[in-house]
C-alpha cells in the first residue's frame, strides 16, 4: 500500500484540530465553574451534595441499614436543615483522601465534610475553610509493657504510620526536631497499621488521637495499651467549600457557629420549644423571632430553629457520635465551649 504524504498531513491536522477543540471547550467550561454560584445551584437542585468520609468510625461511616452517619455527616444535615428546612435533603458522595479537595475545586460537591485538616496551602488553592468543627491532634499508641512513657523513650522504635497523610509528615518533623532516631513503617490504610501493631511487628503506631481512641477499644486487650500524653501536631478539622461563592461560604460558616452558639445558650433539640417565648433579645434574634438575620444570609429567618430541632446543638452532635455512650468515650477537651476552657467560640448573632 502506498501512503500518500497528503493523507498523513490530513490525519495530523484532524488530530490537532480535535485536540484544539478539546482545549477550547475546557477553557470556557472551567471559567463557568469558577463563576458558578454554588448557593443558587444548591437551591435549584433541591439538595446539598456533601463529600463525606465513608470509613471513619465516629465521623462518617455507613450503618448496617445503609445510611451515612457520624459527626461530620451531622454537619451536612445541619446545612441542609438550614437551607431547605429538611435535614435529609443531602446527597452524600463518599470521597477518598486523595480526591476530596479536587472534588470541591471542580464543583463535584458543594461542601466537604471529611475530617479535613485546615492548612494554609489547602486554603490557598481556591478553597475556603469554615470554622473548625473538631480540634484533633496526632498521638502515639504503645504497649504498656514496653516501658515507653514519653516521646524520648521511642529512640530506635519501629512506628507504623498511614502513608500519604499529614500524620506521616508530622511524625518526621517532630522526631527530627527532638533528634530521636526511629524507623517509620509505612502502610497503605489504617487496618494494616493496626494489624501490624497487634501482631507486634512494630512498637508503636500513630494517627489522630480520636482515631487512636476509636481503635483502642477494638484491640484484643485494650488495657495493655496506652496513648502517650504528648500531642505532636495540630489537626483542626473543618468543612471546606469552593471559594468562588462567598454567600455559600457564609452559610456554611454560620451553620457551624449556630450549633456552637446554641450550646452556649443551652438550647437543645428537646428544650428548644421552651425558648420560643424567651424574653432574651439575643436568643430571640438567634432563633429568628426578631430581626432578619436569616434573610441577610439568603435563608429563612428561623434557619437556626431547623438546625437545632432536626440535628441538635454542637454538644448533642458530639455526645451522639463521640461521647460517653459511644465506644469512643472521647473527652471534650479542647472541643469544649470557651466558657468551659475550650476553643469553641461563636461570634455574636446580631
Amino acid at each position, binding site marked *: 500500500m502506498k501512503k500518500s504524504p497528503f493523507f498523513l498531513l490530513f490525519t495530523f491536522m484532524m488530530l490537532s484540530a480535535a485536540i484544539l477543540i478539546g482545549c477550547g471547550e475546557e477553557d470556557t467550561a472551567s471559567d*463557568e465553574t469558577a463563576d458558578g454560584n454554588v448557593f443558587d445551584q444548591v437551591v435549584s437542585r433541591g439538595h446539598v451534595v456533601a463529600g463525606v468520609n465513608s470509613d471513619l468510625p465516629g465521623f462518617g*461511616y455507613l450503618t448496617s441499614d445503609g445510611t451515612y452517619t457520624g459527626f461530620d455527616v451531622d454537619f451536612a444535615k445541619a446545612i441542609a436543615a438550614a437551607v431547605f428546612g429538611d435535614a435529609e435533603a443531602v446527597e452524600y458522595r463518599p470521597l477518598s483522601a486523595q480526591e476530596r479537595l479536587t472534588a470541591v475545586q471542580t464543583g463535584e460537591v458543594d461542601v466537604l465534610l471529611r475530617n479535613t485538616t485546615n492548612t494554609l496551602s489547602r486554603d490557598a488553592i481556591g478553597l475556603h475553610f469554615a470554622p473548625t468543627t473538631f480540634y484533633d491532634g496526632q498521638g502515639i499508641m504503645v504497649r504498656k509493657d514496653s516501658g515507653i512513657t514519653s516521646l524520648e523513650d521511642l529512640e530506635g522504635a519501629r512506628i507504623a504510620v498511614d502513608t500519604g497523610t499529614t500524620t506521616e509528615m508530622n511524625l518526621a518533623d517532630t522526631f527530627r526536631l527532638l533528634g530521636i532516631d526511629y524507623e517509620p513503617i509505612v502502610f497503605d490504610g489504617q487496618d494494616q497499621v493496626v494489624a501490624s501493631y497487634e501482631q507486634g511487628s512494630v512498637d508503636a503506631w500513630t494517627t489522630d488521637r480520636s482515631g487512636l481512641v476509636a481503635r483502642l477499644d*477494638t484491640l484484643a486487650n485494650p488495657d495493655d495499651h496506652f496513648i502517650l500524653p504528648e500531642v505532636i501536631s495540630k489537626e483542626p478539622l473543618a468543612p471546606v467549600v469552593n471559594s468562588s461563592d462567598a454567600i455559600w461560604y457564609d452559610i456554611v460558616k454560620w451553620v457551624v457557629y449556630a450549633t456552637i452558639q446554641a450550646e452556649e445558650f443551652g438550647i437543645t433539640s428537646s428544650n428548644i420549644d421552651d425558648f420560643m417565648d424567651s424574653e432574651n433579645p439575643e436568643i430571640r434574634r438567634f432563633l429568628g423571632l426578631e430581626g432578619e438575620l436569616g434573610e441577610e444570609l439568603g435563608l429563612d429567618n428561623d434557619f437556626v430553629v431547623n438546625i437545632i430541632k432536626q440535628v441538635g446543638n454542637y454538644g448533642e452532635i458530639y455526645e451522639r457520635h463521640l461521647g460517653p455512650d459511644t465506644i469512643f468515650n472521647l473527652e471534650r477537651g479542647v472541643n469544649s465551649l470557651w466558657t468551659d476552657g475550650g476553643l469553641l467560640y461563636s461570634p455574636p448573632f446580631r
Partner: protein
Amino acid sequence: MGVNQADIMKETTVLQAPKKNRTVQKWLKDNMFSSWLNTFFTIALTILLFFLFKVILSWVLFSADWTVVSVHLKLLLAGQYPNAELWRVFLCIFLLSLLTGFSSGIWNGTMTQLGLFFAGLLALCLALPFVSVEAKIWNAASLLVLVCGYFGGKKLPLKKTVLFSWLMLFPVTIFLLSGFGILPKVGTNLWGGFLLTLLLAVVAIVASFPLGVLLALGRRSRLPAIKYFCVCYIEFIRGIPLITILYVAQLMVPLFLGQGIELNNAVRAMIGMTLFSAAYLAENVRGGLQSIPSGQYEASHALGFSTPLMTFFIILPQALRAVIPAMVGQFIAIFKDTTLVTIVGIIDILGMAQNVAKNPTFLGKEMELFLFVAAVFFVFCSMLSYVSRRLERSLGVGER
C-alpha cells in the same frame, strides 16, 4: 468433519488403547508412592496440608464472626438501593432467570451449564438462613421460572424471541433500576455493592466488544486517517493506567462539560472502563486478524465477496474464534478491575466491604468481609473461565 471421521473409522480397524486397571490402590501406588522420594514428598505434603487446612477451617468455622456478613448482606449485594424499591432488583433477577431458563432449554451444552450454575446460586440464596423472606420468595419464583423456562425452551420454537429478549434485557434492567420518571427515581448514587460491580462489568464488556472490533479493524485499515486515529487511541489508552482514566472521568470530565450537563458518577465510570477495555480488546482481536492466512482474503475476493461481506462473514468469525481465550481473559480482568472504582468514591462490593468494616459495632471484622468478597469474585470468575473453556471446545479452538 464428522463424516470424514466416520468414513475413516469404517475403513481401518482402530485398536483401542488397553484399559487401565483403575483401582484406588494402584493409582496411589503409581502416582503417590512410586519411589522413596515420592513417598517422602507425599507424606510431608499431606502433613503440611493437614495443618494448613486445620488452621484455615478452624478460623472459618469457629473463630470468624460471620454475622458481619449476614447483617450487611443486602448492603454488600445491592448497596444502598432503597429497601422499598428492592423488588425492582429482584424483578431483574427474575427476568434474567427466565431468559437463562429458556436459553438453556433451546441451546443445549454451554447454556445448560450456565443455567445450572445460575440455579445453583439461586438455590444457595434460598438455603441461607439469614436471607429476608421477601428475597426468598423472589428467589424461589426465579428458580421456578428458570426450571419452567428450561422445559419450555425444549418444546417451544422461541429462538428468535429469546435472542431479541436478551438484547432488550439490558435496557429494561437499567430502566427498572433507575425508574426514568415512570417509577420513583433511584439515583445512581444509591446503586452499589455487587449490583454495581455487575453492571459496570457488563457494560464495559458488552460495549467494549464492538468498539474493540472496530478499533482492531480500523488499525488494519488502508485509510491513514482511520488507521492513525486507531493507533493513537489504542497506544494512548494502553500507555496510561486504568486508575488515571477513572480519575479523569470522575474529576476532570465535569469540568470539561461545564454546568449544563450532569453525568452521574456511575455512568462516568462505565464510560471510562469501556474506553479502557476497548483498547486492550482491539489488540486481542488484531492478533486474531493477523492469524488469518492471506489465502482466506484472496479466496474470498476470488469468490466475489465485497470487503464488508468478507470481513464479517469470513475473516472476523475465524479471527474471533481464535482469540476467545485471550478475550475471556480480558473480560475476567475487567470484571476484577471494576473494584478500582472504590478509589474514586463509587461503592462497589469491595468498597462496601471496606465501609461496613468501619461501622463501630463491627470494627476489626475486615477479614470475614474480604473473604466473602473474594468468594463472590472467585465463583463468578471461575464461571466465566469455565464457560470460555466450554465455548472453545464446542467451537473446536485448539484442534486446528
